[in-house]
Every structure is written in structure tokens, then in C-alpha cells.
């Protein structure tokens, strides 16, 4: 018992001494990307600023002990300190800035239960509120070098819009379509911190092209940015080609929505093509309702 007490006192003394030598500040974005591997690519997501004078008791080197908890305090992930990297205080006394890859190296983080399964299958944790805690520790016996700092964050997988109207393979009457076509889509979920810019693009599919090939090749007939709204009325101002008696193909179009954040970057850069583009769908314009056209291209 005496030994235990004396060890605890020793730890307290060292920690207090080190705390005077090392100061640190944890900054975490309140709504970081849901894809945890993406944290390392964005400087603004997580930052740990460590300052201290070299020669402090415990040495100039330290490791970061990181834990992720649910709001009820259950630890769902912790850093494997035997494997995490060692950091050295800046010899000039200038602050050392550590980013997500240093503080939360995913290759050395051990996740538990359903969180581990979720991360392996989706790269994300289930949507909800979490707490990330970090503190520097000594490199051999992991004695804390100061108080733990914790920050709350909210994780939610960003879902790109689903295209609603015209629905996939809808055949529009040319008489109506040449005056106005209504486009509708669902909003980005969850609601983003700043209004989303929806860039709507419509491409003509040429008879020799597949729809996705047309999207990746052609100049869009419509390329319009709509702020925060999920409907757009397009006046195409086009003369649709007449029904082709030989190929029996209808004029075909493919449309998609690209969702952009306030900096004009895709709202999600890790899903699908990385361009924040929703799954495109096609629609046809039938210039002659009396003809039975071949829809496929």
C-alpha cells in the first residue's frame, strides 16, 4: 500500500513538473469529415499545439495518448502507445504543431466492437456525437505530461442529393420540354454548416455514346449553380432533333448535381468519383408521341 501511495505521489510530482514544462492546446472541428482517413488531408480538422522548453523533467520526447469516447464516456478507440510515433519538443522553444495523422494515427488506433466493424466496412463511425481526448505522455512508461484535453465533435455521413425529377428514363413530351423542364433533387444530408451550392448539369447523349460517356465527354447544355434550393426550372431554348426513323432513338440527356461547399469544393471528396457528383440519370425527349421509340442507346 505504501509503495502504491509513493508511486502515485511520484507520478503526481513528475506530472506537475512536466506540466509546467509542456503546454498543449487541442483544437478540433465540431463537424469533421465522416471518413476518418480524410482527417489527415485537412489541416483544419484537428490540431494539437505543443509548447515547452527542452530539458524539462521527463526528457524532450513525448507520445500522444488519444482516446475517442461516446458522450456517456465509453471508450471506443484508443491509441496503441507501443506503436505510436515519438515526438520531440522544438529545440528553439517554438510550438510543435501536430495534425490528425500524428494525434490519431489510424494504423495504430484500436477500435472496439461495432465501431471497429463500422470503420472497416464504411471508413466511418456511426452518426452521432463523440469526444476526442488527447494528452502527451512519456515515451517509456506513458506517464501523463499534463491534464487530458477533450473536445466534442459530431459525425454524420454526408449524403449527396438523390435526383428526383425528371426520374430515371422518363420520357418527356417535346412540346412541354422545349418551353420548360423542371429539375428536382433531395438536399445534402445532414444540413451543412453553410448553404450548399448545387451545380446542375445536363448533357446531350449523342447516338454513338453511352450516357456516362457523354457526361464525361461533352460540354453541358445546362451548367447552372443554384444556392440552397432543390428545384430549378430550365428553359432549354433548344430545338430537339426530330424522331430518327433509322435509329429509332430519342434525343437523350443525362443530368447530375454537383454539391459544393462555401469554398466551392465538393461537399464530400471521398465518396464515389470524389467530385461530389450525384449518381446521374437519363431522360428522353419524345418529339412525336405517335412513334414508339427505342429508348436504349
Amino acid at each position: 500500500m505504501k509503495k502504491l501511495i509513493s508511486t502515485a505521489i511520484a507520478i503526481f510530482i513528475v506530472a506537475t513538473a512536466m506540466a509546467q514544462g509542456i503546454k498543449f492546446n487541442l483544437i478540433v472541428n465540431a463537424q469533421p469529415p465522416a471518413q476518418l482517413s480524410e482527417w489527415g488531408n485537412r489541416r483544419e480538422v484537428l490540431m494539437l499545439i505543443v509548447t515547452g522548453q527542452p530539458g524539462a523533467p521527463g526528457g524532450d520526447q513525448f507520445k500522444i495518448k488519444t482516446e475517442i469516447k461516446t458522450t456517456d464516456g465509453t471508450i471506443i478507440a484508443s491509441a496503441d502507445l507501443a506503436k505510436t510515433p515519438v515526438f520531440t519538443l522544438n529545440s528553439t522553444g517554438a510550438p510543435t504543431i501536430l495534425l490528425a495523422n500524428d494525434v490519431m494515427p489510424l494504423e495504430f488506433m484500436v477500435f472496439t466492437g461495432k465501431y471497429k466493424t463500422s470503420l472497416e466496412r464504411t471508413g466511418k463511425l456511426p452518426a452521432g456525437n463523440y469526444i476526442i481526448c488527447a494528452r502527451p505522455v512519456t515515451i517509456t512508461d506513458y506517464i501523463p505530461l499534463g491534464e487530458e484535453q477533450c473536445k466534442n465533435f459530431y459525425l454524420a455521413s454526408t449524403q449527396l442529393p438523390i435526383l428526383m425529377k425528371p426520374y430515371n428514363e422518363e420520357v418527356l413530351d417535346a412540346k412541354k420540354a422545349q418551353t420548360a423542364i423542371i429539375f428536382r433533387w433531395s438536399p445534402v444530408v445532414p444540413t451543412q454548416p453553410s448553404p450548399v451550392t448545387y451545380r446542375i448539369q445536363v448533357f446531350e447523349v449523342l447516338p454513338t455514346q453511352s450516357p456516362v460517356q457523354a457526361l464525361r465527354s461533352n460540354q453541358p447544355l445546362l451548367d447552372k449553380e443554384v444556392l440552397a434550393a432543390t428545384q430549378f426550372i430550365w428553359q432549354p431554348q433548344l430545338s430537339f432533333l426530330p424522331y430518327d426513323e433509322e435509329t429509332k432513338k430519342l434525343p437523350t440527356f443525362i443530368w447530375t448535381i454537383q454539391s459544393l461547399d462555401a469554398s466551392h469544393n465538393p461537399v464530400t471528396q471521398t465518396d464515389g468519383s470524389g467530385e461530389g457528383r450525384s449518381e446521374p440519370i437519363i431522360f428522353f425527349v419524345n418529339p412525336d408521341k405517335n412513334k414508339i421509340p427505342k429508348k436504349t442507346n
Partner: protein
Amino acid sequence: MIRKKIITSSFFLCMFVATSFAQEIPDSSLLNKVKDKAKEKLNISGTMGITYEGYGLSRKPSGWTGYQPRRPWNQVRFNFTPTFKFSKNFSLPFNFNFAAIPTNFAGPYAGIKKPTFGQFITNPMNSFGLNPKYKWAELQLGTQYLKYSELSTGDIGVFGIGFDLRPKTFLFKFFTGVSQQGINYVAGPPVVTGAYKRRNWMAQIGTEKEGKYLFALNFAKGKDVPTSAAPPPLTIRPQEGIVISLVSDLYLEKGFYFKAEGAQSTFTKDLATPLSPNIKSLKPFIEAHTSTLTDYAGQLAVGKKGKNLDLGVMIKYLGAGFQTIGYPFLQSDRLDYTLNTRINAWKNKMNIVASLGQRVNNVKNTALRAKQFIGNLNWFTQFSESFSLNVNYNNFGFQTASGLNPFGIKNVSNDLGINPTFTFTGKKIIHLLSLSYNYSKYDERDVMTGLTTSNNTHTGVLTYVPTYLEKEISPDFSVLYFYNNVPGAKITLATLSAALSMQAAKKKMRLRGQLQYTLGKLNSFNSNNNLIASCNIDFKLTKKLTWATFLTTNYFKYGNEITPNGANYVETGCRTGFQYRFDTKKQK
């Protein structure tokens, strides 16, 4: 420079081949007899052509840029798709479709202006495919758009080499190549997004009897080369992915069918992330990084197809981490189920097509699960020779929690369309009168206040088409009224249009002209005006050579709803091209 070379060389190639086909062979010498015999065995059929597209835009007042060009100023497209049939068992089809000027706006080639040769041939706007086939063995060379299944690969063109072997009922397929070249990021303007060079591999082993069954194992892999772009793209990550799927189709008697596919994908979202011992690798195919995911997908369709009744159920599940290189725009994390039906009744005078289903997004995260209801109905009835009625109804509803906001997202779209058509037949003329009314309602809930705003649209169209039984002209006329009302904005559009099509030059020429005028009004601003004129001329120069031209012009003048007041623009478009169809067998 490359563009010029391509245009010039392709033009001469087209002309040379066209001339060769057009030439008649004198049949007096022995050599010609041999040639004739060879020609009997060799059959060449297909098409080739060249099309020019021109676009013009004039905006006023000068310096105003409120309207952007929407087509390339100039474009030349070529197609050359002959099939050389050397014997009953040996054929050599070509599929060359390419354009002189890159116009990519989305995807890896977005913004590229001066491609290298490698970038030119792998650009999705160009295809250079060659598929020599001997009996059941096909060699695949150049650009190929191969669809193995719904969950493995199908949307991407790959330039490379492979084969498709089908001995008896067996299937052995393999293809490897490059689907995109490395493209350096350019800050612009114009911005070039940039891309990493992507190598692709795909294979299929299985057994198939057309119309009876298919059972196959698919494998598709793609891997980016992280060093292939310098500077690299800013927002795109180098990726690697593999998908393995098992597909099974069964077509039974009496029209019953069963189609199923199960797939597993292992996908690394960022090859720059460190290797991870915590995640299972699928060696030797893929080594796990911290951004590697492994997830599943499956789809099942069961139903019956008949003469008067189709009934089918389709279920599709895509796990949140399911991703495949072969379908780059696939939206994962969803469960779709739909019931589809088609009914023909009343001696085929009544036709009903309907589908009902639901799409659930964010399946894994119940807190933000989004549900989308889908319902479509199209009901057509031919009551008599002179009267038919078409009714359609579409409903899309989207509902989900919205994260930290007090109210969830709820958007509901309803569309109802009624379209009666009357036909009156006279001695010399048939009158067709078609009325169409569509009501569209779109409700959106504000996530902060919980208030729902309604967006209502009414569209009415009246069309009159007289068909002259003894004349070669076919006119049609229509009037349209469109009204959209949303809090803060009211849009009214009224359109008058007339078209006339006719044949000329001993039926060798088909002409069609259209004129359309639209008067538009936004709130209480002055009206805007739009006039569109277009003309099609299809001229059959010879039995095999056609010349098709499409000319259009569009004038739009704003009211005072934008600054500068009275701004206007004129767009002009021209598409003209020659198509030569050939078939040496039919020529004889």
C-alpha cells in the same frame, strides 16, 4: 497540332475509303476474276462519316457575360465502323468514333485543352476499338466499354487488350488497360481538375446459355498511379479498388425469371494513407491502408413476363462502403425495393405501367436514415378510334433527420398529368387534337422553422396536327401555358409553336422547319421574349450516301429582371455531316 493532324489524316482516310468503295471494278481480266472471288468471300458492311458542328453566340450589350456559351465553337466528329467478314466464322469489326476538340467538363479529363496522344486515345469522347472474332473466340483491342454485371464493371471505357472466349456454354473473359491517363492539375483559368493514371483489370469465368441461364464469377480491379500527375489533383485522391461478384440469371418457362448478384468490394479511398495492419488485406490483389474499406452489395429480381401482364420485384442493397471502379458515380449505402407491373387489357386498348417502391439511404446510420417513397403510374386507354386518354401520376417523397437542426428534412414531389387526344378522320385529312394538363406540387420543409413551402406548377398544352392524306406536307401547331408559383417568385411562360415537315426532290430530301415563340414573365418585371427557329435537311445523295444538316437559331431578350435591362443574345448552331453506308454483299 495534334488536332490538325487528326482532322487532316482522318478526312483523307474517310475520303480514301469512300472512294475505294465507290469505285467500280472492271471484270475482264483474270486478276479481276480472282478479285471477284475474294470479294465474294469478303463482305464489308458498316458506316462511316464526318460531321461538323458550329456554334455562335452574340451577346448585347457588348461586354455583358450573363449568358455563357453551351457548345464548342467548332467541333468535327468522325465515325468509322465497318465490319470485315472474311468467312462465316471470321469477322473483324472496327469501332472508331472520335472528335477533334476535347470538350470534357466532368470526370478525369475536365478542362483539358491540349491532350497528349495518350490522353487523346483514352479520352472518353473517343473510341478506337477493334474486335477480331473467330468462331467463339474474340480478341478485344483498343477502347472497350465492357459490362460484366450491374455491380462489378460497366460504365467505364478502357483502352487496352483482352479476350472474350465462349466455347460451348462456357465464358472466359479478360481485359486489361488504361481508363484514364495522368493529367496535371492546372490552377487556371481555365482550371484543369487533374487525374491520376488508372490501370484496370477485369475477368469473368462462367457458363451461359442465351435466354436460359447465366452463372458467372466477375473480378474487376482498378489502381491509380500516384506519381502520374504533377502537380497532382487538389481534391481527387489516388485510389485502388477491387470487386468480386457472383451473378446468376435464370429464365424459366412461362416467362418466369430470377436474377441475382452478390458482390464484395475492397476499396482504398486514398493510396497516400499509411498501410494498416488492423484492416484485412486481400493479398495479392490489394494491400490494406487506413482508408481501405470492405463492404458488400447484392441485388435480386424475380418476376414473370407475359404478353398481357408483367410483374416483378426488385431489391437492391449497396453497403455504405461498397465502391467499384467500374461504376464511378454509384451512390452506395442504400436499400431499394420496387414492385413493377405492366398490364395490357381490353384487347390491347388499355395499357397500365406502374411501379411502387421505397429507397432507404444511410442504412447503417439509423440517426440519419433517409427514406424516399417512389410511386409511378401511367394509364393509357384507347376508348375509341377517335378518342384516347393518358393519365400519369408520379410521387417522390424524401424524409430524413437533418443532423443538429430542430426539424428533419421532408420534401415531397407530386405530379399529375391528364392527356386526352381526339382524332377526326375526313376524306383528305386527319385532324389530331391533343390536350395535356399537368399539375406539379413540390413541398419543402424548412429545417429551422418547420414551415412547409409549396411550389406549384401548372402546364397546359394544346396541340393540333393535321395529316394530309394526299399531300406530302405535315404541319403541327401547339400552344403552351406554364405557370410556376413559389413564395416570392411567379413565373409565367406562354409558347406558340408551329412546325412543317415535307419531302422534296423526288422524295430524296426530307425537310423540317420549326418556329417557336415564348413570352416569359417573372413576378412584375417586364416580359422577356424568346424566338427559336430551326431547320432540318436530310438529303439522300445516293443510295448509300446521305447528307444531314440541322440549323438552329435562338434569340432571347430579357425584360428588366436582370441588369443590364434589355440584355439579349443570339445563339446559332449548325450540324452538318455526311454518312456513307456500305455493304458489299448487297452491292452485287
